[in-house]
């Protein structure tokens, strides 16, 4: 036979038992031709463009999943940052266009749409300010439209006024979605050095260097990596562990490559990128934290977690890059707290803290992700936590992000629950030591040196 029974059974087991799946097929759509100073006309053009480009996204996603017997969990759309599309500095205009986007998404049956986005790493325009002013309302009243704001980059430094402003937006968004544990904040990502071809939410947007439309694919196979490491046993040295991760990542990536090519072919658009990130879900066995446990840590957050995560992330990339010529997006290991059963357990047990997570984000993508903190956390403290994470991205020339939920009316010991892929998160303690004066200084932290980098 062309394939051995072992090979076939391995793949079948990866899908059936280890939950190997295609996390998302995301269609990037440029909205650069939809700009119009009349908000109603702009909303109409945006809606028409989305409906035209993604008309067959749901149907073709189902077809490809059926045809290859590979589950595809989400279908999504990423858009040109809306700050570049709506040319008027009026929050009401952004609210109107956002509503049109959300309605188009509902009509098409897509799971999420990304692109309620502004890039203010160096400063804000009047338009950016209008987009941000409308953001809490948009996040509270739309179901699928996700927001992101770029606050820092290696070349621009950190916009501290932006960090402070966004901490206020986060608090207001939490308050406006208080009846659902502040779920609005789960749809808002703050970035340093974002990528423009990210298929994952909530931080996806389709950058200005992209084509008219392209397929962006994200795979999910932490369970398959864990299974391979379990088979390897505890005696194998770390070189063998890395080798096993590489081989498994290769296979997972190939599945994504196949689906990406088929989707692009079916929709008649180019295959943009394949994102190698091992994206976990709250489902048992679909966990990045459990890979760290299989590597030999009692829980994620134990000493050694940063080293183990660095190795995992690096090996995934080495295996994945050989498997596809279209690697892009974030391509790292995700460690969201609420979306990973093992990370949830570690946070509940106090094994993992925000400070340890922050250290781990220096070696993985993407940052402090899906972290619930007490609802009473001050705007200044939130801004300082955001700034710390931006600094890690800035100084290390990598993407980092913050998706944090100051859970209304909740404190350490409580938990928040969002359901679905967003999962549930125990409320984690934030240091009570003040950074108020530092944050209130405002201004911009200059771009870090690119040489003499020790």
């Amino acid at each position, binding site marked *: *036979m*062309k*394939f051995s*029974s072992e*090979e*076939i*059974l391995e*793949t*079948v087991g990866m*899908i*059936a038992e280890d939950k190997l799946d295609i996390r998302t097929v995301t269609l990037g759509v440029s909205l650069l031709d939809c700009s119009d100073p009349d908000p109603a006309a702009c909303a109409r053009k945006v809606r028409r463009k989305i409906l035209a480009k993604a008309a067959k996204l749901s149907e073709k996603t189902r*077809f490809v999943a*059926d*045809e*290859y*017997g*590979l589950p595809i969990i989400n279908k999504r759309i990423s858009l040109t940052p809306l700050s570049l599309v709506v040319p008027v500095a009026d929050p009401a205009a952004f609210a109107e266009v956002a509503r049109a986007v959300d309605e188009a998404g509902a009509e098409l049956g897509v799971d999420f749409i990304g692109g309620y986005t502004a890039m203010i790493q160096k400063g804000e325009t009047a338009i950016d300010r209008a987009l941000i002013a409308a953001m809490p309302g948009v996040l509270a009243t739309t179901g699928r439209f996700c927001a992101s704001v770029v606050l820092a980059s290696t070349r621009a430094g950190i916009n501290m006024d932006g960090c402070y402003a966004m901490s206020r937006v986060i608090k207001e968004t939490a308050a406006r979605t208080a009846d659902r544990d502040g779920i609005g904040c789960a749809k808002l990502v703050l970035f340093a050095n974002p990528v423009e071809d990210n298929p994952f939410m909530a931080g996806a947007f389709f950058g200005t260097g992209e084509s008219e439309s392209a397929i962006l694919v994200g795979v999910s196979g932490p369970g398959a990596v864990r299974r391979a490491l379990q088979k390897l046993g505890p005696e194998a040295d770390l070189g063998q562990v890395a080798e096993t991760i590489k081989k498994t990542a290769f*296979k997972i990536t*190939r*599945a994504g*490559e*196949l689906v990406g090519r088929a989707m692009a072919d*079916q929709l008649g658009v180019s295959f943009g990128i394949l994102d190698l990130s091992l994206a976990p879900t709250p489902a048992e066995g679909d966990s990045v934290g459990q890979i760290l446990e299989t590597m030999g840590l009692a829980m994620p957050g134990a000493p050694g977690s940063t080293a183990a995560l660095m190795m995992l992330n690096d090996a995934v990339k080495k295996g994945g890059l050989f498997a596809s010529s279209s690697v892009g997006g974030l391509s790292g290991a995700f460690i969201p707290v609420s979306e990973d059963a093992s990370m949830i357990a570690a946070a509940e047990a106090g094994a993992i803290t925000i400070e340890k997570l922050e250290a781990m984000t220096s070696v993985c993508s993407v940052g402090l992700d899906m972290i619930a903190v007490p609802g009473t956390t001050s705007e200044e403290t939130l801004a300082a936590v955001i700034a710390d994470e931006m600094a890690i991205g800035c100084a290390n020339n990598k993407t980092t992000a913050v998706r944090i939920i100051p859970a209304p009316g909740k404190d350490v010991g409580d938990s928040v629950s969002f359901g679905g892929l967003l999962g549930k998160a125990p409320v984690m303690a934030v240091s009570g030591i003040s950074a108020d004066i530092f944050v209130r200084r405002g201004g911009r932290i200059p771009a870090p040196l690119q040489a003499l980098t020790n």
Partner: protein
Amino acid sequence: MEKKKKHIIVTVIGRDEVGIVARIATSLAGQNINIIDINQTILGGELFAMTLLADRVNCSLSLPEITARLKESVEGMALQVTVQDSEVFQYMHRV
């Protein structure tokens, strides 16, 4: 879908019983699907495992429909049946 090859891999795993291969083969024949290669073994003395390569170029049914018919053919038996395009295996196991 326009494709040159229409090869599928059928995998059947579960409790061994008399007649599994016969039922699967009959169902495939009924759907005008041609078996190209077949591997069957009993793992650990009791677990039935079969992998089968077949050509569905003359079958107009979709993959989920083929799967449903195969599952129907072994209904009542403790078996797990999966059907996938062989390209999945080509991609994952061959450089």
